[in-house]
């Protein structure tokens, strides 16, 4: 049976070429586990390096207009990219 490994990257801007600022790994193999705080060093310096390494991008966040009156409020990380590898 083939299984899906998932890599989530958060980048410093909307370009896939930009730097990785956050990340999470999830494994199709239940013997492996990715957990919060499991690595202080990002798996790649830039988002595109994941593609070079065989990860397939299947989702990225949309660019959203800033609602009037709330332009300066910060919240969730904006530039989220989901990748997969089928093994």
């Amino acid at each position, binding site marked *: 049976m083939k299984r899906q490994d998932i890599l989530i990257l958060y980048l410093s801007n909307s370009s896939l070429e930009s730097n990785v600022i956050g990340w999470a790994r999830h494994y199709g193999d239940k013997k492996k586990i990715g957990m*919060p705080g499991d690595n202080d060093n990002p798996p790649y310096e830039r988002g595109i390096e994941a593609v070079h390494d065989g990860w397939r991008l299947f989702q990225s966040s949309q660019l959203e207009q800033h609602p009037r009156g709330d332009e*300066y409020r910060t919240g969730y990380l904006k530039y989220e990219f989901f990748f997969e590898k089928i093994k």
Partner: protein
Amino acid sequence: MKKNKKNNFMLTDNQMAEFVSKGYLIFENIIDDKTNKKFLNEIGHTSTSLNKKNTDQSWLAEHYNEIMKTSKIPLVKAGTSLKKAYRKKTALNDVMSNPVLSGAIKSLVGDKPKLDHHFLHITFPSEYYHDANQKISQGNHNDCVIDPREKTFDIQLFYFPTAVEKNMGGTRYIPGSHFRMVNEYAIARYHNIRGQKHVVCSAGTVIIFHHNIWHGAGINNSKKIRYGFKIRLMPTQKQVKLWTKKTYKNNHKEEALYWNRGVEKNSIKEILQKTEPWFEADSGRLDILNRIRLWRHITNDKNFDAAYWLTRIENDYN
């Protein structure tokens, strides 16, 4: 740290700016060993032979129940004045009376803060757990639901009565995340964030966090139990110039961006503009704007600015 005329240690301007910028201040080893031991004795029942009995993890609830029955840590009504929360001669009263800590609390939330809640966090070694799901670290979160306050802030004191070594999974926290308005565990998807830190400290360390900082407990891979006592305090007054009587007036003309000789080292402006490794290129700038806004508020200096961040967008003649 400086001593004022009333013999109190108040935070310095730079420490206040660090808190505004990073969302925390660390007071390494400020509680003495005698008080730390006293606190550990007052915790109550702390048997370490818990994992031998059963595999359904019921020992965890039993352990807390035993502690609650035997502990000298008081049950305090929410909203109790800090001054009345802990009886004299108890370890927690000794901790909160520490002059450095007391000065920091007054500087941040005034001299009449109320206790929101407190809790003894006990993190058992992972080998105590039989279920693999319980050997997972805690997800990133903040300690509030959506909190829309922009000027008022609570503080959370994390007191570590024993040393926290690297393999003990000390609290992971994200410097500078306290302006990000999120809803508690909604951010648990962010497993790792560039620049995240993990508490590693000597016994008697206290960290004061802004209530909104992103954090999560690590997994304890040592054989020792990790203790952390958390106290959340809320102000009962405006948080304006609580640490000083000084009048702040921004009359220092900066050299214009970007053709300049750089920002003065260790100045308030430099501290407030220091970016975090995880800041997005765009939202990170907004975080700096929000720091400047909070600094304006706590100093009552409505014209303060750094690098024209706010002046630029306030220059509106319509």
